[in-house]
């Protein structure tokens, strides 16, 4: 009997030999579902056989795993994510084991068809799609779908499904549904194995980071379609419903943040129930779209005066193009030096030599303006006509060139880091491109520091928006409505209490002098917090399926004591669904297990302590200029106070010190960063320790 909340089996499809298998979910529950399960499957099916070098994401032996968590489809608010994992072609220089996730309906439909996830290995001879109708799984010919954009492909599969929108119930083996299949698909960018291709589901739910669209393409896999007519067992249905009341009582103004742009009719992931402008129906950039990333695609701000939050034809078109072609908007966009400080902190304009967030489109234009590419160089700009720059026509051709690898698009399709490398300009990582780590654009990793450290220890921009550490009176931490003013000390105390570890120095952002080493950003305290955060993230968000826009939440103004819903909401929801009696800390421990298993994979791929260094700009003034939340808690040895940390930057010695603490806390070797036998065995992964030992990679 499967644990309630889980469907009980996982689908494993080998496209090379067309083998379709059902695996027992129970065996993988110790890894938490979602990404944890995806990591365990990768270990079992891609690492243990030992028959390839784990370097090429487009290798047929790579696995792409789409996994759900216990709360998907149960109506637990903000719990509908589908995790995606496998070697990721976007990571640079090594294509690390990576991951992404997307919202919408897919996870729920998969579970209602009786599957906790679908993992795909191998490569089909010609294009196929996987069709799941309850227990029945077939590989369908997708030759006629190859070349279609993501929306056309979905329309075509819906047609084939025979289920008509707004019509009568469809019978499936004596059961009925009105729902058309949930489909995750790729557009041309994935088919052509670009490194910037997303998976697209519905109008605009997408998994962008990692470039998993290209992995689908490399497997000749166009789409996965699923429709289910079954239910998801809930251990305590009454209790689950009652949590709504408890939640509403304690956090009347809801969780987390959300919202872009002008008022809209909202839409949401399935069962969300706590959405806040993350998707919308009537804003036509675009249906079901998360405007955040997509609308950055052709945001030529500020030079060209296109406001990414405005509803203009060019923004709408840009958003649609991203969805249809299946491009990772964040990586390829035209957003030039962007910094919230231009709007919000006029005292701190962007520091001249170090631009903030920049991306591929913007970088390409810069290279053109500087004469590195274009006329007189060996890089012809065709099919782009740079005279048309900033026009909709230009944007459309740029998208197509990139997705189909036409002309200059072939170079761009490799992503910013490899494009710069090809031009012989890897120094730009530190200046123009601002690639914090592993080829990823800077995001809001600083001055929050723990986001940056997360990127360093993981393989991507962790994109973890739960940093509610800013001064709630004005900053990002001010979730929820009005309420009292918070002293820095009280604020830090609440946060510390809500982690359950009660160490206020986890939130000290002292970055200068001795205090930085004692309690601040290079201290053991910060290392402990980052470890906590990565375990939390690995389990509760990436594996259980809680949405980053609502979790974690350590502080909320909407609660009289300032309590965020972490650490109460997570186990409450999970236990009602699964019937287990897990504590919050039990979940962190599962996260630690999956995190260490991932570390073992990184280790086998070549990760070493020496590689875990930030790009140079992180060690220079200006490192924090693309972030927000500048008012952070600082402890000067005697008292706490809010300080503007816009000038915060790191030092190499400091980061080295921090790493030593971090490895120690994680149980990794201090010289290599390899996990130790004791660590793995304590987590029940002796087999992993033995394997690393056999490869001389045990710490």
């Amino acid at each position: 009997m499967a644990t309630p909340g889980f469907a009980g089996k996982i689908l494993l499809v080998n496209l090379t030999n067309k083998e379709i298998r059902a695996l027992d979910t129970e065996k993988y529950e110790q890894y938490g579902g979602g990404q944890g399960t995806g990591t365990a499957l990768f270990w079992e099916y891609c690492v243990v056989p030992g028959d390839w070098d784990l370097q090429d994401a487009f290798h047929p032996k790579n696995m792409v795993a789409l996994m759900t968590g216990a709360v998907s489809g149960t109506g637990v608010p903000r719990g509908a994510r589908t995790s995606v994992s496998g070697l990721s072609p976007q990571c640079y220089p090594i294509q690390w084991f990576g991951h992404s996730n997307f919202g919408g309906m897919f996870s729920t439909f998969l579970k209602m068809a009786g599957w906790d996830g679908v993992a795909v290995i191998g490569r089909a001879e010609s294009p196929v799609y996987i069709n799941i109708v309850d227990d029945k799984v077939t590989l369908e010919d997708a030759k006629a779908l190859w070349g279609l954009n993501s929306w056309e492909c979905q329309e075509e599969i819906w047609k084939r499904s025979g289920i008509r929108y707004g019509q009568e119930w469809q019978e499936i083996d004596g059961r009925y549904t009105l729902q058309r299949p949930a489909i995750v698909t790729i557009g041309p960018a994935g088919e052509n194995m670009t490194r910037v291709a997303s998976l697209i589901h519905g109008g605009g739910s997408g998994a962008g980071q990692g470039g998993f669209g290209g992995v689908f393409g490399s497997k000749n896999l166009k789409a996965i379609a699923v429709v289910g007519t079954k239910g998801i067992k809930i251990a305590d249905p009454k209790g689950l419903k009652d949590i709504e009341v408890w939640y509403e009582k304690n956090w009347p103004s809801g969780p987390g943040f959300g919202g872009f742009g002008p008022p809209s009719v909202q839409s949401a992931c399935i069962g969300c129930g706590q959405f806040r402008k993350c998707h919308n129906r009537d804003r036509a950039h675009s249906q079901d779209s998360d405007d955040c990333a997509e609308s950055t695609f052709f945001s030529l701000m500020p030079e060209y005066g296109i406001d990414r939050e405005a509803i203009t034809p060019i923004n709408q078109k840009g958003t649609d193009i991203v969805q249809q072609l299946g491009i990772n908007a964040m990586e390829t966009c035209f957003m030039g030096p962007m910094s919230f400080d231009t709007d919000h902190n006029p005292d701190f304009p962007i520091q001249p030599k170090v631009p903030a967030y920049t991306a591929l489109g913007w970088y390409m234009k810069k290279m053109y303006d500087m004469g590195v590419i274009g006329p007189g160089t060996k890089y012809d700009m065709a099919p782009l006509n740079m005279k048309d720059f900033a026009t909709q026509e230009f944007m459309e051709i740029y998208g197509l060139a990139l997705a189909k690898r036409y002309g200059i698009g072939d170079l761009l399709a490799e992503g910013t880091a490899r494009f710069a490398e090809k031009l012989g300009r890897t120094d730009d990582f530190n200046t123009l491109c601002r690639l914090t780590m592993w080829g990823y654009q800077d995001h809001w990793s600083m001055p929050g520091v723990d986001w940056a450290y997360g990127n360093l220890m993981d393989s991507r921009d962790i994109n973890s928006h739960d940093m509610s550490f800013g001064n709630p009176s004005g900053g990002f931490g001010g979730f929820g409505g009005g309420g009292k003013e918070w002293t820095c000390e009280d604020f830090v105390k609440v946060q510390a209490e809500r982690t359950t570890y009660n160490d206020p120095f986890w939130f000290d952002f002292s970055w200068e002098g001795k205090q930085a080493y004692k309690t601040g950003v290079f201290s053991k305290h910060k290392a402990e917090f980052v470890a906590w955060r990565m375990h939390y993230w690995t389990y509760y968000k990436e594996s259980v399926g809680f949405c980053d826009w609502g979790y974690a939440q350590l502080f909320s103004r909407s609660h009289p004591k300032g309590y965020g819903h972490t650490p109460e909401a997570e186990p409450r929801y999970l236990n009602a669904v699964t019937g287990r009696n897990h504590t919050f800390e039990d979940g962190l421990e599962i996260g630690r297990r999956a995190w260490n298993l991932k570390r073992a994979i990184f280790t086998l791929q070549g990760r070493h302590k020496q590689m875990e260094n930030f790009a140079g700009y992180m060690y220079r003034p200006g490192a924090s200029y693309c972030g927000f939340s500048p008012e952070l808690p600082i402890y000067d040895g005697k008292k706490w106070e809010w300080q503007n940390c816009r000038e915060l930057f790191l030092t190499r010695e400091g980061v080295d010190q921090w790493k030593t603490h971090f490895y120690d806390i994680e149980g990794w070797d201090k010289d290599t960063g390899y996990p130790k036998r004791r660590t793995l065995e304590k987590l029940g992964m002796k087999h992993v320790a033995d394997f690393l030992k056999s490869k001389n990679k045990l710490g």
Partner: protein
Amino acid sequence: MAKDKKSVGDKDGKKFSRRDFLVVGGTALAGGALAGYPAKTTATEKENEYAPSTAYLVYDSKHCAGCYSCMLACSLVHEGETNLSLSRIQVHRAVLKKYPFDIEINVCRQCPVPLCVENCPTGACHISVENGNIRMIDSEKCIGCRTCIESCPYIPHRPIWNPVTEKAMKCDLCTDAPYYNKQGGVNGTQACVEACVANALKVVRELPDQTDISGYDRDLQPPRKAMPGFPFGPPKAKSKSETSPDTL
């Protein structure tokens, strides 16, 4: 299933009106599910045979978010599991259609002339006087013949089939919801209404206009509250000097 229905209602079920039904239905269904139903009966005569429901579930398809929370809640409180196929309210999204044609909501209309009740051979589908005259199915009496389902003049049909119990079920405004800790029914609360954070569902007392889709599908929005802007509140005006163009 219910093939003859297409000859009864307008294809999308939306424009179907009571008057149309009584005129068209009276003839089209003669000899079918409603054998013996006198073609000449007037609407008023027939309506007087049934006590009207005292509560109706109405919805706002233009403000629904398509989150399906209502469906998950409905199946949760009735069946103890979440199951889109066993929800008595049905929302269906077509995310690639343009607003507002991208969402369909189908609820039981508690019809003034309930053909599900009229045609049930065992009296399982009945008007529950003790529960405010809502049209309910007594599962003890249901023999699983699907007549109520096939009699429903709307597409898709509102009574639904439970393949596990092999019985029909329909919206009871949560009167009989074994996994609901609250008092449901006409004088209580309803799981779907509670679950909807978009204010797109509501139970009303008066009989909705039967001649037009807007009787049930109506604007239910309270006066709008401003949503917080991102990330710090409403955008401030930018002054030129604050907007530093690039750099190198």
